[in-house]
């Protein structure tokens, strides 16, 4: 019943003798009953699909889902991907999309959290309003913004024309040069509240005494933020940025509903591209190979994610 940190756990597992481990597992059999449902669901819905995707990535597949008629072709799917021009285009888009969305969402969310940290009249209401975009569905958000960007009746275009800044409403999402930034604006609209909630939660853990001590020592507001608040929030920030980065890297709905990856692939990111390869063009083998590459990239993300989280845990155990 005691809480043991990962270190002791590891040391125990390193003890020689397989029968010892088996005996230990047997002794703890009642504990596994608690996690078994979670693990079972995970196995069916994650482990099997991963195995199947890896297998499929080495095969040439017929259209339709008659996947029994597949033929083994080794690494051909992978070389086909890496030598195609679309691959690099889509990778570049994904990079801009992920870094842009994550960076700006985090900065806006963090700033909003700081501004909301001090109590003032109407703070609760304001906070609730700022969170709403995160709660509503991405499908609804996509339609709302599609209407706002509409090239004939969109409100932003109308304002620009009304102010005399444009002769006619710009084609925000129908033009190669503006589509990606336009979609990023929508994505940030939906994502910054998450960063805001996380950082607000983090800010509550910054000890007040430290800030007051810094004030007594003559630190100004910026110095207090930079030397006291920010270092204290390093862990929360890391976790928030990683969660945002992964969510953005994996986002599908906004680009898919707003543009379907167009015009001329300008807003295709990896996820929408894979979806189109699989369900649009029925190239299951190539799509699977893409998924495996994606998987490798995400495992790299995952390594840092787990490290950031277990950093949290270790500090907790020693405290």
């Amino acid at each position: 019943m005691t809480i043991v940190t990962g270190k002791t756990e590891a040391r125990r597992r390193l003890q020689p003798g397989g029968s010892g481990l088996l005996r230990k597992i047997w002794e703890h059999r009642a504990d596994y009953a608690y996690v078994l449902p979670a693990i079972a669901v995970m196995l069916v819905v994650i482990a099997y699909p991963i195995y199947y995707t890896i297998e499929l990535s080495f095969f040439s597949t017929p259209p339709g889902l008659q996947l029994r008629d597949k033929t083994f072709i080794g690494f051909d799917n992978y070389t086909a991907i890496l030598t195609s021009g679309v691959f690099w285009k889509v990778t570049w888009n994904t990079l801009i999309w992920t870094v842009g969305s994550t960076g700006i969402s985090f900065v806006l969310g963090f700033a909003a959290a700081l501004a909301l940290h001090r109590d003032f009249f109407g703070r609760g209401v304001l906070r609730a309003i700022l969170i709403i975009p995160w709660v509503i569905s991405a499908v609804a958000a996509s339609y709302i913004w599609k209407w706002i960007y509409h090239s004939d009746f969109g409100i932003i275009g109308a304002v620009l024309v009304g102010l005399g800044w444009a002769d006619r409403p710009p084609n925000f999402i129908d033009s190669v040069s503006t589509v990606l930034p336009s979609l990023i604006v929508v994505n940030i609209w939906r994502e910054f509240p998450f960063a805001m909630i996380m950082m607000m939660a983090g800010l509550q853990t910054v000890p007040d005494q430290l800030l007051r001590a810094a004030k007594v020592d003559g630190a100004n507001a910026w110095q207090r933020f930079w030397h006291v608040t920010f270092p204290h929030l390093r862990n929360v920030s890391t976790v928030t940025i990683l969660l945002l980065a992964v969510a953005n890297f994996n986002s599908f709905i906004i680009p898919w509903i707003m543009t379907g990856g167009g015009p001329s692939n300008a807003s295709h990111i990896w996820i929408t591209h894979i979806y189109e390869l699989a369900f649009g063009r029925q190239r299951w083998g190539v799509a699977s190979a893409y998924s495996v590459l994606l998987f490798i990239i995400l495992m790299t993300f995952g390594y840092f994610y787990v490290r950031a989280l277990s950093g949290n845990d270790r500090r907790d155990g020693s405290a």
Partner: protein
Amino acid sequence: MSTIAGTAPRGQARRRIRFDGWRWGGRIFLVFMLLYTALPMIWMLLTSIKSGFAAMQFPPQWWPDQPTLASYQKLLDPQNSVGQDFLRFFWNSLFVSTATTILSVIVAVPAAYAFSRFTFPGRNFLFFTVLLRNMFPAVIFLVPLFILMRAIGLVNTHGSLVLTYLTFGLPLAIWLLKGFYDNIPVQLEQAARIDGATRFQAFILIVMPLSTPGIIATAIYSFIGAWNEYIYAYTFLSKNEQLTLPVGIQRFFSENTTDFPGLMAASFIMSVPVVVLFLVLQRYFVRALTEGAVKH
């Protein structure tokens, strides 16, 4: 910083004299964020009460000159075919999301408790494996899961969605709840055990009530995730009467792309349940993140 009351007279006097740039910067920034957040939603509402003709004007009518609830009436009227479909999508979403929420809590609570309290072999490995689920996009699993669901006969049933949605919510749910249980003193359970309770009874009677905010937060998170999910519902379901709202409204308006008032009304109705749920219970959610996800 937050102790305005404590430093009252002198502090306030000084504040009145000196211009506080940080505070004013913060206020201006909040106004900007409020506009960025709220204007699209206000524009959705204003469009939804226009007629189709009034929406298609340039320059747009900022305020509808003849506001009408026709779009809402059409969607919510069980007498016509549009209303029948829409209400069915709504109930489908409600059913799938509620089932997912209940199952998520049932699965996540004991798992999080075990990860927090017990020291069975493989505990850390299993915990981080569960967390890794957050990493993977839905698209990777789409083809194999479709084939799997077809093999076990779940394609075109809501069961396929509930089973898949379970795995989205679980990682964060388990993580949040584990943080909660970590902060509940073990001594409370030990006292209960001394009084004769079994380990399971101590868990149900002592620990569960204390973690109510965490459980509510978990439930909200699962519900919102399931309510808003699109890609699996889009792939797994083909019959019109089974669709959930996000897919349903897309089918609705893909033929008739000019009915923006109807589309905005549908988007609004789709947003109402989750926004209300969240606003009513948000303090639990924020508290759960404070106590669960963000360690002191």
